[in-house]
């Protein structure tokens, strides 16, 4: 399987990336290269092997339900581009 430039455009759009024509070409080659690796992996016979969800075969540790975080809004918002009335401001988004 290999991708075409149109698909690269769609993937870039989903990832909110702006690609120039040259960058799209480079990305196409790189992603197709990755597909090559995937093809190699898919050639391995995995019949009867249960898929893993994680490379490490251990289970999730759980946290007790207690509030451990304090309000650090001031510190966080000091590095935000724009804030007002405690809110982070972003370019207008309308559904």
């Amino acid at each position, binding site marked *: 399987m290999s991708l075409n430039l149109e698909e690269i455009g769609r993937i870039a759009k989903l990832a909110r990336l702006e690609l120039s024509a040259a960058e799209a070409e480079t990305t196409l080659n790189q992603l197709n290269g990755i597909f090559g690796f995937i093809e190699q992996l898919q050639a391995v016979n995995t019949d009867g092997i249960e898929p893993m969800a994680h490379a490490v075969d251990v289970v999730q540790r759980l946290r007790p339900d207690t509030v451990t975080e304090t309000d650090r809004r001031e510190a966080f918002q000091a590095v935000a581009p724009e804030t007002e009335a*405690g809110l982070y401001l972003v370019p207008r988004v309308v*559904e």
Partner: protein
Amino acid sequence: MSQWEVVIGLETHAQLKTQSKIFSGASTAFGAEPNAQACAVDIALPGVLPVLNREAVVCAIKFGLAVGATVAPRSIFARKNYFYPDLPKGYQISQFEIPVVSGGGLTIQLEGPSTSSGQARTKFVHLTRAHLEEDAGKSLHEDFHGKTGIDLNRAGTPLLEIVSEPDMSSAVEAVAYAKALHALVQWIGICDGNMQEGSFRCDANVSVRRPGAPLGTRREIKNLNSFRFLEQAINYEIQWQINEIEEGRKIQQATVLFDPDTGETRAMRSKEDAQDYRYFPDPDLLPLEIKADWIADVKAGLPELPEAMKARFEADYGLSAYDAAGLTTSLATARYFETVVGSVGKAGAKPAANWVMGEVAARLNKEGLDIDAAPVTAAQLAGVIARILDNTISNKIARDVFEALWNGEGQDADSIIEAKGLKQITDSGAIEKIIDEVLAANQKSVEEFRAGKDKAFNALVGQAMKATKGKANPQQVNDLLKAKLAS
């Protein structure tokens, strides 16, 4: 509309009642200052890692047990990728391929005529799955000089997304299902059910088809946060789809929003630019393992479920299906009722049911209170009912006693009856004396009665009751008065 069949499935987001967020130690309390409860994990600073909240998993297990579903011994968290400013990571942590809960279902009550055997009409709605995920933040679009304000306090709040099978065939059924689910999640204590605060919200998948035809194309109505809107939105959507098809157009799969002001649904995005969420297992989280002994522990702590309790109320207390259903609308109501019955005995179950669903419910409703906050406790109500059962007071006086208790005029029924001198007069000698006085003072009525006017008798009963301030047993007054007049 009879030649169209409606198919509805619901996806419900129930906010789980935890202290802290699903993957961070920030508080989930409602109504804080914007972003005061958004920690480094919630705002997605680089290098942070999510750690799963054990209590959120307990909530999911409780739900799975309550709906007779399978709780997965191993489930997987996945990233659901999309771009939106109130989702700082650029993905929502959810579950995709292996959810924590699969299958199960719940019985819903339908209105309309009951079956020939006298049972209320019910329907079993199957569930597809329920999975754990995090909520996003909130976007505020007003008042920021053309910019959007982002509050991430809600980001990372634990949600259980409950997905039904498309088993419902009308807006009324969808609402009945939503109400049953709403009652259940509160019953088992996993969600506060506050719809105004967004703790319980529904998305409805709606399609129509000719009977026997394959499923029609569905449209999804997003974010319905009241039962009324759910019903209105679905009914509008059904009619809209039927009109489209009857006018020769095809339904396009789409996500739509309901506008409560116009009562209409409108498309938000169509299939062409539909999201591609590119789910994949979240490498930051390991598989969630739930062993059988953990499930058994949770099960041991689960309250008796509403269906079981309803059946028990009918069998043990001889209550009607209607009464049993009314008393099990919430766990708090059921517990209140059982405390009353525990005190007055099974013989008092029917009066207890009448009081809880009548006087108590009416007063709570009027004052907008929950039964937990009722000024008259179950023990106090039991005191009132006990005095009705032993004929100390009549039903009418009991309402006055209840009123006095409600207003905090006394600690218990007995002290109010004593203080206000409300004890029913059952001593026939005392009643006869009062009747003699009434007869003497109302000679005109007596003559009218003797002349054959039955109405005059009622007037005399009224006078006698008035003279006893309603404390005489009305039947006794009747009997004694009749005897006097006949002599």
